[in-house]
């Protein structure tokens, strides 16, 4: 279905998913403001959020199934498989987060219905990031997402650590946004446009490959993105922020926020700067440092939450390997891995939230001792998540890692592939101890784990995540096909008719 983006009707059609989500946000915000102190309404808002995310997902799927493509060059929003695929990933992450949150906010007595509205707003921002055809839209999406997540990090006002997390995230995030914006300004200065396709055209046309302003602009963009995806050395905020935030929010940040950062990064690098050698080396090194540092520091963590925080840094490194390949295969690998990564990360945090009735920050890996006999289903799900994070065959993450390695080897980056597998071996050193504790150590006391329960919607979420990881591990065909189409849809401008 070709859509003419110069007409109001065409633009509306192209933005149907975003408009649906915006409408839900407005309605739910009013409800939240109206009945602010009612726990039952809070729950209803949560349930409506699920419907909001579901209906937005349907809109995305409809648009994708229609084969929506733009007539001419996309101006502000792209209309391709990559946008739809990333939108679905973000919606999935948000959906799972909300399912975890329903019971969590009750337990922790967080009375703030706007919590759900903020998740929706952040998701909306992410969808703009994944679908932006213009650096300005990327920035708008980034800010919409970030501001919502700054608030979410501190939504538990009773916790000083949450306050610390929110402040830290906000200060450093604002700083990173500054870098990002400065980068956009320099690139605009060099090319005279902020449209991704036109930038690409100008860069080739004017031979700006080694232009100082251009290089500086790309460097600043990379720093901004590096911060958002928690790549080393821009990761300093991550452990404290992940540690202090309410666990479902941490899961949301680790999964969806990171995926959004990557989606925008992949799109900008592949579409605006495709074929420019300058960023390849930088991303290559970022990937290496992130994998090595993330995995090594995770090895030293005793608290489960901090271990998962560093593990998410390590996974940013794996995703950067996909980016560094600079090929359609790399983008496709990113898409597939993002789905697996969302499932396993949110799943691991869900188990942590269940085990952390006395405060998730204090759950040590060894505190899981004996969970295998006391709570076999929870332990079983956690085992699936840990093996997935390790990238073990039989799980979706293995297929994802295989895909990333394929992209790296195909791009003749064998050294990067070897470093990735080396990092994976190190990661066994911290993904196996939880399994070991759960099954191979006895429970410390007879009443241990009595309170560890996953209830209500979260139980469904955890079950679905574990089963989906195994299912995609053995039958990934459909998902692979979707990922490939999404990755290949990031086509350079030359394939569009350049008249505008």
């Amino acid at each position: 279905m070709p859509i003419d983006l110069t007409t109001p009707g065409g633009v509306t059609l192209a933005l149907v998913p975003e408009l649906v989500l915006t409408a839900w946000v407005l309605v739910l915000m009013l409800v939240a403001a109206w009945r602010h102190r009612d726990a039952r309404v809070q729950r209803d808002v949560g349930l409506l959020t699920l419907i909001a995310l579901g209906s937005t997902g349907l809109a995305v799927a409809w648009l994708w199934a229609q084969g929506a493509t733009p007539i001419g060059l996309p101006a502000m929003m792209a209309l391709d498989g990559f946008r739809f695929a990333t939108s679905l990933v973000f919606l999935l992450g948000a959906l799972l987060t909300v399912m975890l949150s329903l019971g969590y906010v009750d337990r922790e007595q967080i009375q703030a219905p706007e919590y759900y509205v903020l998740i929706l707003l952040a998701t909306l921002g992410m969808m703009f990031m994944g679908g932006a055809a213009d650096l300005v839209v990327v920035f708008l999406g980034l800010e919409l997402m970030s501001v919502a997540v700054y608030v979410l990090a501190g939504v538990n006002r009773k916790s000083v650590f949450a306050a610390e997390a929110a402040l830290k995230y906000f200060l450093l995030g604002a700083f990173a946004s500054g870098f990002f914006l400065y980068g956009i300004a320099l690139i605009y200065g060099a090319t005279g446009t902020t449209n991704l396709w036109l930038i690409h055209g100008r860069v080739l046309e004017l031979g700006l490959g080694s232009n100082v302003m251009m290089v500086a602009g790309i460097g600043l963009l990379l720093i901004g993105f590096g911060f958002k995806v928690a790549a080393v050395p821009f990761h300093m905020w991550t452990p404290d922020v992940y540690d202090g935030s309410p666990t479902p929010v941490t899961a949301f940040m680790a999964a969806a926020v990171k995926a959004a950062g990557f989606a925008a990064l992949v799109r900008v690098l592949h579409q605006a700067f495709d074929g420019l050698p300058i960023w390849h080396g930088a991303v290559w090194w970022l990937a290496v440092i992130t994998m090595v540092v993330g995995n090594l520091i995770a090895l030293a963590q005793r608290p489960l939450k901090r271990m998962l925080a560093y593990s998410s840094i390590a996974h940013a490194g794996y995703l950067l390997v996909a980016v560094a390949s600079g090929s359609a295969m790399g983008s496709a690998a990113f898409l597939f891995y993002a789905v697996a990564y969302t499932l396993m990360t949110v799943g691991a945090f869900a188990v942590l939230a269940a085990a952390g009735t006395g405060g998730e920050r204090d759950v040590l890996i060894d505190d899981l001792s004996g969970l295998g006999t006391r709570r076999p289903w929870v332990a079983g799900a956690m085992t699936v998540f840990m093996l997935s994070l390790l990238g073990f065959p039989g799980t979706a993450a293995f297929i994802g890692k295989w895909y990333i390695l394929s992209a790296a080897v195909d791009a003749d980056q064998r050294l990067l592939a070897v470093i990735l597998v080396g990092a994976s071996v190190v990661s066994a050193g911290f993904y196996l101890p939880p399994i070991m504790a759960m099954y191979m150590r006895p429970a410390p006391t007879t009443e241990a784990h009595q309170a560890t329960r996953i209830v209500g919607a979260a139980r469904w979420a955890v079950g679905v995540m574990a089963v989906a990881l195994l299912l995609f591990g053995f039958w990934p065909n459909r998902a692979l096909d979707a990922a490939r189409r999404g990755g290949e849809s990031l086509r350079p401008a030359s394939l569009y008719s350049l008249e505008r």
Partner: protein
Amino acid sequence: MTAALTGLGYQRWALDAILLLPLLGAVLVMLSPPPAAKRLALYVTLAEFVASLGLWWTFEPTAAMQFQVVRQWIPEWGIAYRLGVDGISLFMLLLTTLTMPLAVLGSWTYITRHERPYYALLLVLTTGMLGVFVALDLFVFYVFWEIMLIPMYFIIGVWGGPSRLYAAIKFFLYTFLGSLLMLVAILTIYFAVARATGEHSFGYDHLWRNIAYVRPWAFWLFAAFALAFAIKVPMFPFHTWLPDAHVEAPTAGSVILAGILLKMGTYGFLRFAVPLFPEIAMDPAVTAVVVVLSLIGIIYGALVSLVQPDFKKLVAYSSVSHLGFVMLGIWALTLQSVQGAIVIMINHGISTGALFFLAGMMYERRHTRDIAQFGGLAKVMPAFAAVLTVVSLSSIGLPGTNGFVGEFLVLLGAFRTHPWAAAIAATGVIFAAAYLLWAIQRILFQQVDHPENATLPDLSPRELAVLAPLVACIFWIGIYPAPILRRIEPSARALVTQVREAAGAPPVAEGAVQPGAR
């Protein structure tokens, strides 16, 4: 027999059935009431053994892959579920299916906690190991190779001895490290071949036929494969995980580790590393390294065994020595030596498996494996003493037992290409006699100097049932190995000829001496 099985279409469903049966069994075991778990597991493994026996009769002694199964899995990447059996893998399969019912029976009283998951894991492990031996697609091979780690990790870690956690993670990490580098190598081959031929496929045949396209990186690819397999074998100096894992694992775990898992390493060399990269494998420098490391393994393993106070550890180190012979046999690359290597792989599974069972039986009676704690058992437990003596003699390689056939063939074959190496390796046989005979002397003979030993019960009927098939195999292979050698020969000959041709090495005339020739 053959006709009847063919009538049933056995060749078509055999591999599917024997891979699927243990998985179904695992599900059933998990669903069964706990007291029935072990009985159910025994029935499943017995059924599995019976099902696999058909392979023995229907296998045609040619070098061709038989019982092939090809089913699309992830067509986008050219991954298909490709299985097949040849003379090399046939006996690994049969060894596995023979070992598993014995492993279940051997765990009967040893495993007292969490029985259902234990037996379910044993069954999953069965599928994983069988899958490794029949996979003809490198992706499928890799998946089986890795998946089998998890059940073994749990078996060591949950049901193992005092320092089981350390042993379990060491076992896991060693194997994981090696196999991940192999993964990069597999992908490199895949893309190089796909670019050159335009056909994306992980199929072993396709990659093997077009392996010439990866020549520029052949050394590194070979090294990655070789590292993965060498850790598994284990070759000196990658063997340090082995004593820990073998000693800490429960009896059945040690039996499976020694009997089957180690063979996956040597099988990997025979199936992948050597035929895919013949010119690297037969490169004089590489050959020298492998042969020297094998010799060090043979001698070092034997010497370390000699000083072990713990009987289980003694047996564990003896594996390093035996597997050194296998590696030497593979690298000598003559028909006899390769046949001998495969026969040792079988023998080691039988003899060392039996030794681990016997060590477990000692432990169950006295809760110690310290050789010094025993003595004079021959008077107290005559049947046990008889079996231990027979098994030890077979492990030493006494003529008339299976051990002799394998080691003799390897030494005979190796003597043609590496006479010095064969001469040094032969001393390993003497060391084996030293450590095992000395051990059984201290365990079985002399005086009963510990009063606790005076009242130990002799082998129970269940324990006899575990050991009897192994003892029968010891004598059968020792006295009449011809049916086995006949089935191995075509594949071994094809391997030797192809590798020698590809590596440009001169063919070695087949000697007239060949015990058990047709």
